């Protein structure tokens, strides 16, 4: 079954054509990577899928339902959740409170005005589970701004996972991480993808990670989807080799 389908999606920024007639289908349970040079339009594509911007034309469908132009908050409720290229956090709050806010929203408690938020045991359990699973236990009392760059990215992903996504979009999940952290994050993404039965799309420049865990790879160059396939097919694809300045993709 196709979870996400894009039909002829176009987006311009002034004279810049950042999404060129993009058509693709992502199957349920797929772990797919989107690669491409800087400025190729990868983040823009994520912005279109998650409702942050609306494409000029074309259609986006989630489980067969058209979602083009829908608001981010309604897409999150449908299960389309993202993490950001630059971690998007509640920077003065603790790690725990960052997750707690997401969990309160997930459990629909956000309109409760006069209850103390510590009374919701299911919210607390939810947060503890995510903390534990993402290896943030022990850091729950730190303020978000006190975290290392790598941990901020982990927290950003943790917030996304708290929303129990069906379709998870990760924009450069290992950006700014140390080599050790990268390896850990790579394994974690694969594990979580399976454990939570997700459909996952991630953008990544780190080719070890891309070829290591992605079922499928899509290559975006100057707004155009130039190739699709598994690791082997992509590595041999002449257009892809061309796009990466004549170097063979590792």
């Amino acid at each position, binding site marked *: 079954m196709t979870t996400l389908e894009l039909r002829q999606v176009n987006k311009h920024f002034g004279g810049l054509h950042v999404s060129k007639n993009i058509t693709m289908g992502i199957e349920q349970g797929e772990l797919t990577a989107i690669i491409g040079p800087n400025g190729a339009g990868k983040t823009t594509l994520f912005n279109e899928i998650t409702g942050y911007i609306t494409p000029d034309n074309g259609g986006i469908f989630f489980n067969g339902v058209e979602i083009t132009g829908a608001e981010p908050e309604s897409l999150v409720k449908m299960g389309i959740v993202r993490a950001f290229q630059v971690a998007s956090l509640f*920077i003065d709050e603790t790690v725990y409170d960052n997750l707690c806010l*997401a969990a309160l929203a997930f459990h629909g408690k956000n309109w409760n005005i006069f209850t103390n938020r510590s009374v919701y045991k299911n919210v607390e359990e939810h947060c503890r589970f995510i903390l534990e699973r993402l290896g943030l236990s022990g850091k729950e009392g730190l303020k978000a701004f006190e975290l290392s760059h790598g941990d901020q990215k982990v927290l950003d992903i943790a917030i996304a996972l708290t929303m129990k996504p069906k379709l998870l979009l990760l924009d450069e999940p290992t950006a700014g991480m140390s080599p050790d952290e990268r390896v850990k994050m790579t394994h974690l993404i694969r594990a979580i993808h399976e454990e939570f039965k997700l459909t996952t799309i991630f953008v990544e420049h780190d080719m070890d990670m891309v070829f290591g865990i992605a079922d499928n790879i899509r290559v975006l160059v100057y707004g155009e989807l130039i190739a699709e396939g598994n690791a082997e097919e992509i590595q041999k694809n002449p257009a892809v080799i061309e796009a990466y300045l004549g170097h063979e993709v590792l």
Partner: protein
Amino acid sequence: MNNKLTTMAPWLAYFLIFGSLIFVGGDHTIHIASQVIILGLFAIAFNVLFGTTGLLSFGQAIFYGLGAYITGMMAKSFGGDFFVWALLIAPAAAIVLSVLLGVLSLRLSDVYFTMLTLAFAQLAWGICVKWSSFTGGDDGIQAIPKPELLAGGLNYYIFSFVIVTACLYLLWRLDRSPFGSVLKGIRQNPTRISFIGMNVFRHKLLAYMISSCFTAIAGGLYAGIDKSIHPDMFVWTMSGSIILMTILGGMRSFFGPLIGVAVFILLEDEIGRATQYWSFVIGAIMITVVLLFPKGIVGISRHFARLFAKKGGQRDNP
């Protein structure tokens, strides 16, 4: 345990100070204290928008004036016994008005929100001054009747103290509620709020309604202090002094705005008696606090508390 103590300590201080005044305060002190708690409620309600949600309304005086005029005019028309009922109608009217104004202004960017709120309040002030047959114009309204029981200054202080305390308790609950967390989230990162499935505008609107509702209660209570109200309650300097007092006290703490109001009013009273240049002195104090201690008086005391704790060999609280 220790944690519980630190959250309860400000409440303890609040009850000790404002409660004990009931027994020891003279007429003048009671008069000042009434102003402090009523404006304190205004400032803390304002801070739901400002310090918590990150929304600078430059026109909360519109709800303060509205509350005062509804209460004053109703009591004047229907008699003193109606005074207490008018205190219930005022916040209801404020909620209605805040929905109208909020829908118009809260979708705009922050600067436009600030300017529009200012414009609305100035408009209300203009109407209040010009429509003198209805509102009493420049002279305002005098000799507002109150129920017999609330006639004396002390009785009215006790009455205000009970109402203000109840309101503060509700606002304090709000601050610690899930909704309160959402508001703090909106201040820090509204984009992320939408990406965890919440509508920023609707949460801001509810915050605006709540803030306005409690502001109108403060306005209504004010109508009973001197039994007189005037159009200046709507004017931009009213909104402006609430902003100043809130910053002076500390906008990141629940009781900070109340402390700011208390310091401001006490200084005004003391220095105002000594020199006619009191506003210069207040200005100088404001500049000093804002430049040296951007977190206000509460920030200063926390700073010294930390220094003290360090000297005692304790670990700094993270």
